[in-house]
Structure formats: structure tokens, C-alpha cells
């Protein structure tokens, strides 16, 4: 097995693509899989880049998308294009593209359609939040606004709230990982990794997914890896959970610097109330500095300036697994219906409001690499991009850490926290962030390394 | 570049616009131990190795010391040049030179015009510039420089005397045709030993700070990046702009003004080093020259 990552941040996208291709050619590899990632600087020109790389490597499958940065060979880069070539004759790689609408409507027959084999590992690249264009955004915001401006009709109207949530799911504006991964949950042999693409600033038509050298924008790319021993190593920043919900709550309270225990009302992925108040009012009580109006939100979204950072979190518990997830909240969504990126249908009303539990946890955000035992396989790690704002310069320690732990044949990408479907026989511990049966995710602090 | 006098310092000529102009006085200044003497010796040896006559005036080191300095560097050939009189070393005590322009210049000129040196090195001139307080003393220095220009292309080294801005210590810098500043900060890092071209009359030169090394066998070696060299090299990418400009000059101006501007544009064309187009500059020239 051989792998190498090539990087360029030339100003012109074509130059950048040619640059990585030229560097790759010098290595004289016979690759079997290409991973292509790009930061947002080449927005509008991704297809040009893919075309140039395809000319040289178009005979092998490719997956990837846009990210905020990547770590490779001891370097951390947050601007440019990354081409990773993997040469592994013991593995078989297939990449399939799926229109989001088709994926969303598919049921468990998806597995059949993908022709997943027993030894496979599946890796999905998909945005977790995606607005294709202005129209898409305005339509969604209008639905949220409607609820607020017609309270006589809309207040507490569950059908309306569910309708808003269904709209978000149907359009793919929000793709809760537990909804995405439940499509794979009727089989016990193949783990599925969900790389949630996203950026620290939200914007229109962003992130984009690359699949077999096509920029498929907000659709999905699924990579199937058939090789003995390919597996995902998932981890989160929390201690292991217990079988007792109360005990798990106490564990969480120790971790997140709680502000208070609360009760939520929600339908699917929409939080309507926290202790009978809207989310924005609850956050305003703590801190009203980032409050904005809906017009400003629209304008900021169009400019790609809506920050995905959230100073406060809710930790919610699944009534079946006793595990849970953190969801970031802020008061810069100006409507009462607060959409989240988790479907909370199976979740308890009781939750905890607190602060991001990041203090002293720099290395916990990449803990999955500590559990990689085989250094001769290629490893891709997905790191929570909130670490950039949270830890700042300290993040540079990751460079040395990756080199020490993984030595070579690795690439780590900064994007939204990853999720995983792990059949029971593939779980290493009782992760607290089990958001649904055998599905693991949290709005912050999960990291995942899969090895080929 | 072919009519320039090569300095013999590796890497310096490209950033000096090809070398020194013939018949100029060129200053190298810096603090003790920074490489001024090595510079002077490299300049001398480059000429000597090509059959030129060189006069080396030393106000500090004796002939013996200079020879040892060269041999330590691996420049053994100096002995040969002394023996065959291609190299003349004049050792004087600075205090003994009373009249710059007469005494010293006379010695450097020598008796026979035909065997006059084409390269002259004076190392260092410091003693003679200690007290240039009077107008006459400064005039003497000016005359000395003028005299040197008539004889050869000279390199003069000068000890840097701190941050003084007073007139007497900076007079040689004003008078020289080019000034190179050598520095050594002493941290042992890449940019501790550096060379900077403070001035270089009549020629494009590099404006940066260049790291230097002193390497056995080679002496001073100056490093300039490809990008820095590109900034100094002229190119003909925008030739058509100059052609158009000249056409416009011919149609809108006449007589001596036309001739003068055409000449200036031609010089500018031959010396255009910038990446950006010359449009704005040409536009300003034409606008100014066309005004009544």
C-alpha cells in the first residue's frame, strides 16, 4: 500500500490543479482511489479543478468535497486543494453518486442498490446543512417566519411544525445524521461512516461534494471499500455511558459546565420551546450580543458570513440508548422554530443547557487516532472544525501528534463532526454519543478515523 | 551588462545591474569583521585572474598580512601576481597621509600611464575620513574621488561608525557612485550577514536585503531569490506599448523635445523591469511633455 497527498494553493484554480497533478505524476504511482478536497477559495471553479485531475486519474474512482482545512505529512493547511492518491491492490473501491432527493426517499432498499458486500466499509460524503440558492434559503426562512407572524393560526400547531421539519428534510437543507444512517441500520455487517461536510461560515451552495470527478454540489457521494480489516474508529470527547440515564446525566453535567437543567419541546428536528421560551429568548437572557434580524441573516447567508460557531449547547438524551448528543444553540436564528441537525424524535424532554465542553480537551478531539494499531494502512480522519476557533494556535500541536501516532499514509480533514453507524460487533466502547441505536454522533467533539 | 566591471563577488553582479560602471568609485561599508577586506580582495583577484593590473592600497594590513589573508582563503595565486608586478600593494599609515588628492593619488597613479591599474582598492578609507569637519577637507575628499574616477574603477572600504548622521562620517557615501552596506547581527541565522545596495548611480539594482555567506575558497557569496532577480531584470513584454507611445510622440511633438522624449522612452523600454504594464507611466510622461 502506498499513498501520498499533494497540495497547492496557487491563485488560479487551473494552476492549482495542474500543480497537484504534476507533483502526483512525479511519484509514479498506480493509484486505485483518489480523494480530492478543496477549501472554499476555489468556489465556482471546482469543476475546472476536477476536470484537470480527471484527465490524469480519471480511470480510478474519486470522492471528496469542500472542507475548511487538512492535515497531512505534518502540515496543517487551511487554504488550497488536496489530492490524495491511494495505491492498494488488496482493496476494491467503488464510488457512487446519489441525488439527495433519491437518497432521502429511499428506504432500506438502498443497501441492495449499493450492492454492499459483507466486508465493505461505506463512507458517505454529504453536507449536513445545505441551501442550494437564494430561492431555497428564502423559502425556508419564509416558512419559519410564517409561524411567528401568524400566531393565531400557527402557535403550537404540530402539523405546521412537522411540515417545516419535513420541508427541511425534503429539500436537504438539514440532514440529520441519524436519519441518514438509519437507512443502513437493518444490516449488521457493514459499518457506515458519515463525513458531514461543512464550513465554519455558512453560505449558499456550500459545501460541495465531489464524486467521480463531478462536482455534485449538495448531493451525496458514497465510497465502498472492500478489504479485510477496513474499519472506522469512532470516538467522542465524553466518558463512556452507563445503562442508567440519571448517571449519564451526571456524567454530562461534569463535562459541560452546566448553566441549568431544562425541558424542551420538539418535533423531529425542530426545537420549539426551552422551558416554555423560544431558543432565541433563552440565549438572549444569557447573552444578547449576537442577536440579529432575519433580513441580516439572509444577507449574511448570501455573503457566506453566517458563523456556524455556537457558544452554548444543549445536551439531549435518547430515551432508548441513554446516550445523547450536544447541539449548539445561538440567538442568531431569529425565529421561534429552531432547526437542529439531529432528529429528536426518540429523545427525552429533559436536557441540560451549558457551555462547550472543550476546556483541556485539545487531544480528545483527535482521540480516534490513538486507537489505530495498523500503521501500514491509509487513514482518513475527520476532525471537528470548531477546534480551529476553540483552540487557535494550540491546534498546531496536532501536526506533531499525527506524525507521532500515524507516521505516514494519513490525511485529516477539518469539517463538521462525523457520524457513524456501527453494528454492535464493531463498537469498541459504550460511547455516550449514541444518538440512536448503533448510530453515533454529536454536534461537537466527535472524531473518526477510518483505515483502509 | 557586458560593459560593466565585474565585482568578483559571487551573486552580486546580477543585483548590481551587471557590475560596476567603468570609471566609478564604489564604497563598501560595514562594521569590523563583516567582510569588507574579503570583498576588496575578491574584486582585486577577479581582475588579476583576467590579466588586469590592480593597485591595492591598505591603511591597516601590511603586504604580508594581505598575502596571508588570501592564502587562508585558498587564493594562493596572489603571490604570483605580486612577483610579476601585476598587483601592487601600497601600505600606508593613515596618519601619514596629509593631502588626499595629492599624495595618495600620486602614488596610485604611478609614473607610467601605460602600466596604470584598471582596478584600485582602498582598504579602509576610514582614517582619512575621521575628520572631515572643514570645508577644505571635504573638498579634498571630493577631489580625491574625482581623481580616482579618472584612473580606474575603484572599490573603497569604509568602517561603519554607528548611527551617526553627522556630515563628516557620511560624506563618502554621498560622493561615491555606488554604496554597498554589509552587516552582521551575530545571531548565527540566515539573515545576520547581509548585503544591501544603498545606492547605485545610473543602474537598476536590487533593493532588498540579501543574505551572504563567507565560504572558504570562494569568499563572499550573495543569495538572491529568482523573484528578486526578476525584479531587476528588464524584459520586453510590453514592447508594443512603447512602440505606440513613440508613434504618439512623433505625431504630437517635434524638434528637440521629440528627440529627447523618444530617447527617454527608449531607455525606459530597455530598462522596464516591472510586472505591470507601463501604460500609466507613459501616459503621465506624454501628458507632462505635451503641456504648453
Amino acid at each position, binding site marked *: 500500500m502506498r499513498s501520498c497527498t499533494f497540495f497547492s494553493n496557487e491563485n488560479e484554480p487551473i494552476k492549482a490543479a495542474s500543480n497537484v497533478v504534476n507533483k502526483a505524476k512525479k511519484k509514479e504511482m498506480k493509484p486505485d482511489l483518489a480523494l480530492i478536497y478543496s477549501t472554499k*477559495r476555489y468556489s465556482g471553479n471546482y469543476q475546472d479543478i476536477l476536470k484537470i485531475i480527471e484527465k490524469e486519474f480519471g480511470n480510478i474512482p474519486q470522492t471528496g468535497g469542500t472542507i475548511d482545512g487538512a492535515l497531512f505529512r505534518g502540515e496543517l493547511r*487551511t487554504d488550497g486543494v488536496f489530492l490524495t492518491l491511494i495505491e492498494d491492490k488488496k482493496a476494491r473501491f467503488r464510488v457512487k453518486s446519489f441525488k439527495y432527493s433519491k437518497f432521502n426517499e429511499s428506504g432500506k432498499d438502498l443497501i441492495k442498490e449499493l450492492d454492499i458486500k459483507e466486508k465493505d466499509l461505506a463512507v458517505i460524503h454529504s453536507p449536513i446543512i445545505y441551501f442550494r440558492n437564494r430561492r431555497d434559503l428564502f423559502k425556508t426562512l419564509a416558512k419559519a417566519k410564517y409561524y411567528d407572524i401568524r400566531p393565531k393560526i400557527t402557535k403550537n400547531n404540530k402539523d405546521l411544525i412537522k411540515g417545516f421539519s419535513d420541508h427541511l428534510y425534503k429539500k436537504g437543507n438539514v440532514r440529520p445524521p441519524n436519519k441518514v444512517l438509519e437507512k443502513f441500520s437493518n444490516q449488521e455487517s457493514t459499518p457506515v461512516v458519515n463525513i458531514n461536510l461543512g464550513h*465554519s461560515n455558512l453560505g449558499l451552495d456550500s459545501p460541495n461534494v465531489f464524486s467521480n470527478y463531478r462536482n455534485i454540489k449538495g448531493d451525496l457521494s458514497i465510497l465502498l471499500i472492500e478489504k479485510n480489516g477496513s474499519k472506522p474508529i469512532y470516538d467522542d470527547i465524553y466518558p463512556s455511558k452507563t445503562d442508567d440515564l440519571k448517571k449519564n446525566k451526571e456524567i454530562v453535567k461534569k463535562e459541560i459546565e452546566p448553566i441549568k437543567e431544562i425541558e424542551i419541546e420538539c418535533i423531529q428536528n425542530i426545537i420549539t420551546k426551552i422551558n416554555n421560551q423560544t431558543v432565541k429568548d433563552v440565549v438572549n437572557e444569557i447573552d444578547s450580543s449576537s442577536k440579529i434580524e432575519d433580513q441580516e441573516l439572509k444577507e449574511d447567508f448570501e455573503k457566506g458570513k453566517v458563523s456556524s460557531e455556537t457558544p452554548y449547547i444543549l445536551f439531549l438524551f435518547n430515551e432508548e440508548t441513554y446516550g445523547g448528543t450536544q447541539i449548539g444553540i445561538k440567538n442568531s436564528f431569529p425565529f421561534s422554530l429552531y432547526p437542529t441537525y439531529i432528529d429528536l424524535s426518540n429523545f427525552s424532554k429533559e436536557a441540560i443547557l451549558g457551555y462547550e465542553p472543550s476546556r483541556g480537551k485539545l487531544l480528545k478531539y483527535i482521540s480516534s487516532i490513538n486507537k489505530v494499531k495498523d500503521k501500514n494502512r491509509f487513514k482518513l480522519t475527520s476532525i471537528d472544525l470548531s477546534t480551529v476557533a476553540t483552540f487557535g*494556535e494550540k491546534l498546531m500541536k496536532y501536526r506533531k501528534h499525527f506524525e507521532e501516532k500515524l507516521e505516514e499514509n494519513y490525511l485529516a480533514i477539518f469539517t463538521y463532526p462525523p457520524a457513524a453507524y456501527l453494528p454492535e460487533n464493531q463498537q469498541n466502547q459504550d460511547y455516550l454519543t449514541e444518538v440512536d441505536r448503533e448510530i453515533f454522533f454529536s454536534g461537537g467533539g466527535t472524531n473518526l478515523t477510518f483505515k483502509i | 551588462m557586458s560593459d560593466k566591471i565585474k565585482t568578483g563577488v559571487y551573486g552580486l553582479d546580477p543585483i548590481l545591474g551587471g557590475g560596476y560602471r567603468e570609471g566609478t568609485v564604489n564604497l563598501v561599508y560595514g562594521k569590523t569583521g563583516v567582510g569588507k577586506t574579503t570583498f576588496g580582495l575578491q574584486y582585486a583577484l577577479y581582475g588579476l585572474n583576467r590579466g588586469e593590473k590592480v593597485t591595492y592600497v591598505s591603511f591597516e594590513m601590511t603586504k604580508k598580512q594581505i598575502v596571508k589573508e588570501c592564502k587562508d582563503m585558498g587564493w594562493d595565486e596572489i603571490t604570483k601576481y605580486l612577483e610579476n608586478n601585476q598587483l601592487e600593494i601600497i601600505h600606508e599609515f593613515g596618519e601619514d597621509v596629509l593631502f588626499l588628492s595629492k599624495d595618495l593619488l600620486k602614488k596610485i597613479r604611478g609614473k607610467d600611464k601605460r602600466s596604470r591599474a584598471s582596478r584600485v582598492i582602498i582598504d579602509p578609507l576610514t582614517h582619512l575620513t575621521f575628520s572631515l569637519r572643514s570645508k577644505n577637507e571635504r573638498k579634498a575628499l571630493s577631489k580625491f574621488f574625482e581623481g580616482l574616477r579618472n584612473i580606474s574603477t575603484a572599490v573603497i572600504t569604509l568602517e561603519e561608525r554607528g548611527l551617526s548622521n553627522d556630515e563628516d562620517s557620511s560624506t563618502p557615501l554621498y560622493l561615491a557612485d555606488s554604496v554597498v552596506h554589509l552587516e552582521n547581527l551575530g545571531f548565527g541565522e*540566515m539573515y545576520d550577514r547581509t548585503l544591501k545596495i544603498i545606492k547605485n548611480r545610473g543602474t537598476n539594482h536590487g533593493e532588498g536585503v540579501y543574505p551572504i555567506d563567507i565560504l572558504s575558497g570562494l569568499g563572499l557569496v550573495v543569495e538572491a531569490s529568482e523573484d528578486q532577480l526578476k525584479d531587476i531584470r528588464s524584459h520586453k513584454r510590453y514592447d508594443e506599448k512603447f512602440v505606440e507611445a513613440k508613434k504618439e510622440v512623433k505625431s504630437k511633438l517635434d524638434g528637440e523635445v521629440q528627440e529627447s522624449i523618444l530617447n527617454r522612452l527608449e531607455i525606459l523600454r530597455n530598462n522596464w523591469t516591472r510586472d505591470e504594464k507601463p501604460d500609466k507611466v507613459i501616459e503621465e510622461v506624454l501628458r507632462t511633455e505635451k503641456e504648453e
Partner: protein
Amino acid sequence: MKVDKLNKELRELSNIPGVKACILYRLDGEIIQVRIPGDKNEIIKLMKWMKNQVKYVINEIKKKNLDSVDFSFDELQVVFYPSSQSTVLAVVTEEEAHRDLIKMEAIGTRDKVNKIIT
């Protein structure tokens, strides 16, 4: 050559959207390398101020063992990173740039500059 490597590192940093200038200063204020990708006029005035700050900044960095010194102006931010005993890397970014991400790149460049220079 080392100067070419240095040049490459500063060029890559200056390529990043939002970066207005990268300047490598020697501790006496002398500019070793400079890259201004856009409008130079915007930066020239600032550069004079920056040159005067270098010695002060280096002193503060040494005294207080700082990783960087930041200055914010109306539309620009200037961050000085000590890149070696005798040099400091200054990065000028526009207000709207993603500073956290650029900071990662700047630190990476600083470390590479340090390797080249020392």
C-alpha cells in the same frame, strides 16, 4: 536556494484570500522579504508604522514569551509572529477575512521560515 524557499513560503501565505501582505522583518526593522498581493498603496503607509513597531514587538515577545502580537485597525489586522531570534513575520489581513483559518496558515509559515532561517 534558501531564499527561494523563503520566497515560496511567503508567496503561498500571501495567496490566501484575505491576506493583504506578508512581510518578514529583521529585528532592526529591515525588510527581508515582502509580498503584497493586491493594492500596494493600501499597505505602504501601514508598512512604515510596522517597521517602527518591529523592535518594540520583538521586545514584548521576548519579555512576555508571547506567541504573537496583534494590532487591529479599522479594516485591517496586523499580527506579528516571532519567526526566529532575529526575524519576525508580519501578516496583514482584511477585516472580513477568516482570521482563525489564516492564523493556522501563518503559524505554519512561521515554523517553516524558522527552519529555513536558523
